């Protein structure tokens, strides 16, 4: 039986060890991860979007997702938000009389809702297994249903509310955009970009897309400019690299420059995302949260890895709790109660 002296000694030793462990552990503070150089992504330009939802339909088709009905007559796929069966959706900002497109007052604007493919994804950080993985080369945040344990931490972790669980199925999976990675090996790129009639959704390397976005921001609103559609070829792309992808290379057309906000959403948010967005209406109003350059994954992992490094802190806490518990225990009176 442990004596009080022994116990206190143990506590002291544990505390010291924990204190010693905490000091080097702070050195494992993790920086926000950055986009891989060859990372693939999308550029969504809300001023070009006409709200036709071709991308929504194409996404459903290539991902073999069923339609979702919210209207009385079940004619059209009408999801209200992304879900386990809807990975991509065009939502609409509405204000007042909704007369002018891309106006904040009495106007309307469209916004694509799909995975942003963060440089430092919260869902990957939160996943206790290896079901959410960020591809080291393409940067696609991919989901592996075979590894998933169904905890739905990713659902709670994502600042954009993207991973969604298929609650309607007893063997539900997480549903989210994976940039059509299952089509890449056949030379097809993201279906949403492939079918977009106006080039509002453009596929390419994020680096090139960022350059294209900045080019558009530098133009004068109302001027004519050439805008690519489908896939944006990489800067100085060799023909053999271009041949990897199917489809017409140059589908560009002339369009008037939109009245952009001078901000490329996704350039720095949470260390950057691989899907970039341009809009004429305040990003928070169209549902894109205001995020700092430091990712929450970096913050939480720093805290967690510090606390749980070598499991020393938990042991120390357990020891402390045990001590407090023991001290508060009142020894039972050995003598039986005097009955009648």
């Amino acid at each position, binding site marked *: 039986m442990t004596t009080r002296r022994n116990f206190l000694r143990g506590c002291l030793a544990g505390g010291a060890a924990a204190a010693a462990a905490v000091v080097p552990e702070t050195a494992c503070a993790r920086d926000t991860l950055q986009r891989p150089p060859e990372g693939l992504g999308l550029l969504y330009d809300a001023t070009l979007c006409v709200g036709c*939802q071709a991308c*929504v339909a194409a996404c459903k088709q290539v991902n073999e997702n069923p339609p979702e009905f919210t209207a009385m007559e079940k004619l059209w796929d009408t999801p209200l938000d992304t879900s386990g069966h809807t990975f991509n959706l065009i939502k*609409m900002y*509405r204000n007042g009389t909704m007369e002018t*497109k891309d106006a904040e007052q009495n106007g309307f604007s*469209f916004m694509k809702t799909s995975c942003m493919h963060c440089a430092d994804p919260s869902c990957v950080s939160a996943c206790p297994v290896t079901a959410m993985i960020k591809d080291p080369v393409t940067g696609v945040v991919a989901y592996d249903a075979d590894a998933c344990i169904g905890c739905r931490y990713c659902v709670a972790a994502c600042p954009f509310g993207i991973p969604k669980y298929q609650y309607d199925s007893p063997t539900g999976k997480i549903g989210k955009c994976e940039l059509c990675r299952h089509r890449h090996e056949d030379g097809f790129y993201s279906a949403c970009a492939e079918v977009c009639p106006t080039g509002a959704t453009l596929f390419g390397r994020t680096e090139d897309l960022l350059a294209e976005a900045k080019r558009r921001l530098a133009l004068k609103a109302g001027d004519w400019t050439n805008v690519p559609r489908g896939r944006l070829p990489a800067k100085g792309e060799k023909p053999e690299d271009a041949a990897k992808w199917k489809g017409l290379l140059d589908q560009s057309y002339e369009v008037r420059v939109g009245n952009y906000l001078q901000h490329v959403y996704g350039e720095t948010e949470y260390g950057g995302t691989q899907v970039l967005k341009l809009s004429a209406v305040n990003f928070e109003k169209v549902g894109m949260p205001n995020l700092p350059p430091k990712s929450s994954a970096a913050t939480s992992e720093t805290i967690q890895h510090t606390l749980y490094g070598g499991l020393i802190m938990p042991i120390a806490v357990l020891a402390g709790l045990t001590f407090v518990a023991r001290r508060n225990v009142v020894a039972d009176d050995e003598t039986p109660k005097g009955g009648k």
Partner: protein
Amino acid sequence: MAKQQLISLESDSRILAAAERLMMTRREYLQFCAALAATLGLPQGADAAVAEAVATKRRPSVIWLHFQECTGCTESMLRSEHPTLEKLILDVISLDYHETLFAAAGHQVEAARKTAMQENKGKYILVVEGSIPTKDGGIYCKIGGKTAIELLKECAADAAAVIAIGSCASWGGMPSTGPNPTGASSVAEVLGKPVVTIPGCPPNPYNFLSTVVHFLTFGALPAVDHLGRPKFAYSRLIHENCERRAHFDAGRFAMEFGDEGHRKGHCLYKLGCKGPETYANCSVIMFGDAGAGTWPVACGHPCIGCTEQGIGFAKPIHAMAKMKNIEPSVFLPRIVEEKGLGASLGAAAVLAAVAGAAAGAGVMVTKNLGLSHQAEEMEKAKKEGSKATESTEV
């Protein structure tokens, strides 16, 4: 508006005579008049009024001027395949001056125009086809030694109504596209007052004919919009009634000419179709009178927006249309879509009742806890007491 029934004209000899004159059967004639009334969007009963007017009213004298144009409006009108339409045009109206159709020439024709204007002063309809050159005093188009400006002003002065047919006369059309070397202008610009316009390159003959028949039947031109276009024909976008609209809504587009989507009849928006920014009824009444599938979009070519100033001949055919109809779909979700309906009053009342009952029950249970203990104690004491008495008894 005459409230007549078509049936009342069944055995009308005037109708029979009119049908014979137009080389139609009586039934064909009445059907034709009903179709015209329907194109005009007139209520029931108007078909009979139209039939009667066409059969009995004095044919209005029409003076038809040609300026800077290709005569396509006239040609398309003559080639309409509806039962002997050319016969009807020439019979419903009294065409007193038309440079293309007149057999006569020179002074003879000019004299005919003057006579017609004199005889029908204030009653004739002036139809203008083609734009009017205004640069350098209008010297770029002269007929019979007169410039187009002089001719137009002279003829318009005593006209009961002026109708500009085709895009050239309506807003300048193809001749007015940059750099516009002749200063081509519309009829309204030259006359300085709004006129009825039937834009299109060429316009649908029925839109013109319906306008004339409206004038004949009711003595007034049909309601027009701010650009002088009859509302019955030009109040809706081609996109709104397009047969390919379902493909647009479902996001199925032809990506290039001849591809799978194009062969399957998918939406031509991505190929530059101007349907979403062009007001005309082509998608409703088609074109060319050869049945369904005989208007540009049905044939597989994107609409070029020939009726719209600034679009037809101005915007490249491949250039993307501006979505004028973006009254965005009601199906598009809001940025944050409210889900559920909130608590109804009844549901809230039931919930409150349940909560109240639970709280009351809880209170009672707590109260009884002590009581039952007391009762138990008392019971015990009683039992013990009775045991004691029993033992004493025994």
